[in-house]
C-alpha cells in the first residue's frame, strides 16, 4: 500500500508534534503543534475514506480551534508563565 508509508511518516511527525504540544515552553508553538496534529489527522481521514470528517477536522478541529487558542493567548499576554 502506497498510503502506508505516507501514514507512517505522518504518524511519526504527529507524535513529534504531540511531544512538542505537550512539552514546548512556548504556548503558541504548542498550539500550532496541536493544530498540525489535527491537520495531519484530517489527511489521514481522507486516506480512511472519510472526506466529511476530513473537511470538518481541518476546518473546525484544526483551523478554528487554533484561532480560538490564539485569541485567548493574545489576551493572556504573559511571558513568564509560558515556561
Amino acid at each position: 500500500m502506497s498510503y502506508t508509508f505516507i501514514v507512517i511518516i505522518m504518524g511519526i511527525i504527529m507524535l513529534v508534534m504531540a511531544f512538542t504540544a505537550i512539552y514546548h515552553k512556548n504556548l503558541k508553538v504548542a498550539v500550532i503543534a496541536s493544530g498540525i496534529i489535527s491537520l495531519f489527522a484530517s489527511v489521514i481521514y481522507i486516506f480512511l475514506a472519510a472526506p466529511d470528517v476530513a473537511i470538518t477536522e481541518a476546518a473546525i478541529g484544526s483551523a478554528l480551534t487554533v484561532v480560538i487558542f490564539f485569541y485567548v493567548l493574545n489576551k493572556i499576554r504573559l511571558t513568564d508563565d509560558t515556561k
Partner: protein
Amino acid sequence: MIRNSFLVLITAGMAWILLDAVSGYQSREYLNDLSGYYATSGPEETGAANLVTAVVVTYRGLDTLGEVTILFLTATIIGFMLRTSKRREGSVRRATSEVLVTASNVLIPVIFLIGVYIFLNGHLTPGGGFQGGAVLASAMILWIMSQSGTKVSHSLLEITEAISGFGFVFLGLLGIILAGGFLDNTFLSLGTFGKLISAGAIPVIYSLIGLKVGAELSNIILVMNETQEAEQ
C-alpha cells in the same frame, strides 16, 4: 518523583486497558447490519447521496440536534462569562492595514458563498452544515480582523442563532406531524436522487445547521475578540 512514577504507572494502566480494548480488532470485511442498512436503504429512505449526511441529519438527527445545542450552550456560556466583564471601549490598538481591509471586502462575500454552497450540497457531496458553518465563521474572523476597533452588532448573529435553532426544532416537529416521526425528512418530497433540491428536508435542515453553527462559532470568536478580560 513519586508523583511522576505514579503518573507513568496509571498512564501505563490506561495503555493496557486500551490495548485490551483493541485486542479483538481486525480489519473489517463486511458492513454490519446497521451500516449495511444505511448503505442499502439509506439512499432510498432519505434521498441523500451522502450517506454520512443521511445518518447525521436523519437517522441520528437527534444527536445532531444535541450537538448544535452544545455549541449553542458553549456560545451562550462564553458570552455570559465574557460579556458580563468589561468591554473594550472602542479603543483602537493599531490601524488595520489597507491591504487586509480591501482584501477582506472582496473575500468575505466569496467565503460566505462558499460556506453556503458547502452546506447546501451537504446531502450530495462531502461537507455540510458543520463544515459550511465553519467556513462562515472564518468569514467572520476575517471581517473582525479587518474591522478592528469598530463595534460589531451582535443582533444579527443572535437572530440567526435563534431562528435557525428554532427552525431546526420546528422542522423536526414537522416530521412528527407530516411524516413518520421526529426529524423525519420525508415530509418534503425526496425529489430526484442526486439533485440539489432533493432528499426532502435534509438540505433545509443542513442549511439551518450551517447557519446555526456559523453563527455560534462567529459569536464565540466575536465575544473573545471583544472582551477585555486579562488585558489590564
